[in-house]
């Protein structure tokens, strides 16, 4: 009796290759035939192997997690970076300035240490010292009143700090001008409170934008997309099993009565499954540990991640099948191409760069990492799902192209040397 308590006819039969007649049930057989499909057998096996390949799983999983953590750490400041540090300026203390009491007061108010502090002001009497401070970057700019009562702002750079200085001073003069004009036109305004409006800040626009992307979340999207394409490593693993010059096991497979395509299909599927599970883990990490708000549309995110994982696995399949180089080179190609794609998806650099690149060379937005990233982004910022579906379908088309190209290469391969 074997383990399962069935009486195996086989044990009784002669070991010398007597073919069991499977169509005729023998009287003493209770054997229920448990045939296993080849696909299922290979698939189960490869899944087993992959799950036990600790280092492969670990490194493909850990890398996107670390990257996402880096993003969070590095960029969590951005939202609060709106609270600028006060701009360091110097004001030349001269007679002309004293004549403009209002301006002096305004600057003084803006320099008081409170939460609305705009300037950190140093009052100096001579211009030379101010020039020195400017040169040494101790200040972003200095203000000097000329004899005509006009203010000059001297700066070195042309950036945000300087823009703020200009804005404030402009605002002062413009408001003063407006006040003068309005009082001249209708002195009543002083009494009926209209003039007060000059001091208020009112919003005259209604923001209809809907969701605007949190800076950091965009990088998460690129991280997820990159991780998807990195799944190409699993595609490469699948090819290893069938290409005799990549692994010795594949030589065994070549002499076995198994169709190569079936082998590939089973191995690729196993890789794809593992890859998708890893992406799910990554998503969970970003949402629950890093508290990134990816979207409210959970099913669509899962769907796009599925398509993305598939794109990555088939991409690896293509790289593995399309040439006869050794494993190191193939992995290198995968990494290099993923890197380029991630660049075009906006991972390396300020987001503006991505858009400028796309305007320069429109075709780059069709690389798989960009497609996936944009798909996530569309989910977030669009009200309808049109753009999302456009990206999703593009990703699927990419996968189909990869499969088609791989098929062309799969034609019986014999080698000149193993």
């Amino acid at each position, binding site marked *: 009796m*074997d383990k399962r308590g*069935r009486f*195996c006819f*086989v*044990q009784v039969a002669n*070991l*010398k*290759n007597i073919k*069991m007649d*499977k169509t005729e049930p023998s009287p003493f057989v209770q*054997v229920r*035939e*448990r*045939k*296993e*499909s*080849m696909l299922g*057998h*290979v698939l189960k*096996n490869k899944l*087993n*192997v992959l799950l*036990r*390949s600790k280092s492969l799983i670990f490194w493909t999983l850990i890398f996107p997690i670390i990257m996402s953590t880096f993003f969070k750490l590095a960029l969590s400041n951005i939202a609060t970076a709106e609270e600028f540090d006060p701009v360091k300026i110097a004001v030349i203390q001269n007679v002309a300035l004293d004549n403009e009491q209002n301006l002096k007061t305004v600057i003084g108010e803006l320099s008081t240490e409170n939460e609305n502090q705009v300037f950190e002001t140093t009052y100096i009497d001579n211009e030379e010292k101010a020039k020195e401070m400017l040169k040494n970057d101790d200040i972003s700019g200095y203000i000097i009143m000329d004899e005509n009562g006009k203010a000059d702002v001297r700066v070195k750079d042309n950036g945000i700090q300087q823009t703020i200085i200009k804005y404030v001073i402009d605002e002062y003069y413009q408001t003063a001008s407006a006040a003068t004009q309005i009082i001249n036109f209708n002195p009543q305004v002083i009494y009926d409170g209209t003039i007060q409006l000059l001091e208020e800040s009112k919003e005259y626009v209604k923001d209809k934008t809907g969701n605007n992307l949190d800076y950091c979340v965009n990088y998460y999207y690129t991280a997820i997309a990159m991780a998807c394409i990195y799944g190409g490593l699993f595609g490469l693993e699948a090819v290893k099993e069938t290409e*005799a010059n990549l*692994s*010795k*096991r594949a*030589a*065994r*497979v*070549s*002499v*076995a*009565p*198994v*169709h*190569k395509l079936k082998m590939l299909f089973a191995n690729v599927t196993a890789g794809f499954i593992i890859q998708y599970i890893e992406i799910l883990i990554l998503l969970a990490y970003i949402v629950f540990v890093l508290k990134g708000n990816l979207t409210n549309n959970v099913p669509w995110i899962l769907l796009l991640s599925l398509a993305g994982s598939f794109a990555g696995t088939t991409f690896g399949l293509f790289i593995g099948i399309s040439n006869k180089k050794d494993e190191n080179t193939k992995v290198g190609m995968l990494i290099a191409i993923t890197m380029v794609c991630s660049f075009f998806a906006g991972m390396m650099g300020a987001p503006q760069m991505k858009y400028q690149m796309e305007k320069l060379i429109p075709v780059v937005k069709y690389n798989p990492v960009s497609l996936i990233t944009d798909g996530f982004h569309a989910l977030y910022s669009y009200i309808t799902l049109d753009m999302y579906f456009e990206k999703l379908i593009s990703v699927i088309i990419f996968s189909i192209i990869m499969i088609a190209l791989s098929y062309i290469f799969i034609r*019986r391969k*014999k*080698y*000149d*040397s*193993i």
Partner: protein
Amino acid sequence: MEKIIEVENLTKSYGKFKALDNLSLYVEKGRIFGLLGPNGSGKSTTINCLLSLLNYEKGTIKLFGKELTPESYDIKAKIGVVFQDVAVFEELTVYENINYFCGLYIKDKATREKYVEDAIKLTGLEEFKKFRPKQLSGGLLRRLNIACGIAHKPELIFLDEPTVAVDPQSRNAILEGIKELNKNGATIVYTTHYMEEVEQLCNRIVIIDKGKMIAAGTKEELKQSISMGEKITIELSENANVVLEQVKKLQDVIEAKQEDNTLFITYKKGEEHLEKLINFMKENSIKYLKIFSELPSLNDVFLELTGKELRDN
């Protein structure tokens, strides 16, 4: 006798280097066929060409009377291969490995389970079923490699140098296992550069060197084919140099060599060489401690045919 393998004029080059040069051979069903040759002579290349893994320029190869193509699943199902390199999954246990590879041939689970157990028993791996390849010694690893290749009870088995770098115990186990497989009806093609194994196992042998067939036949035929008939080794107690010269002049002596006080004398074919030598010693009052005679080995065959030794080439 039915010819299970027929090769004619097989030629294969790696670039400018000719690995196989018009090689022809055949293997009969039910036999253990040995492909013997030094390192780099083209043994593995031959096997790989036979299995349709390598391209070749010229020649015909027939297995089971048909040409082997990648789609010949019916033929492939009857073949088992044990490659020179160990080809198993590091992540799976011994049992799982054998089960996987057997599963590429045997779909029925019950049959497969049985076969796997048989393979484990045949290769003596019962105690190691749950071990991973990393935990196995070189010899055990080779046994696993073999088990994976033969578990599905193929009719034709190729073994490409299965005992390289294997401890003697494992080697014996492997050789016994191969004999067992043959007894159960499998035809075996065995390549190696160890002549002792060929001597032990093979019915028919082909010796190759530099891609060319040097000799073919059974052990006896091969040994008969060379001029050497016998080799006598005699260990003298003294004065070997002097005796050497005398011995060289004896009848039927092809060659005589000396190492310290021992003489190695090679004789042509003939009768009673040993007796005659003993008489000669007696007549000349030459004292000796040991004397024995042996028939030529395959190494001698090879040596005579090519002028080289089989091993350490």
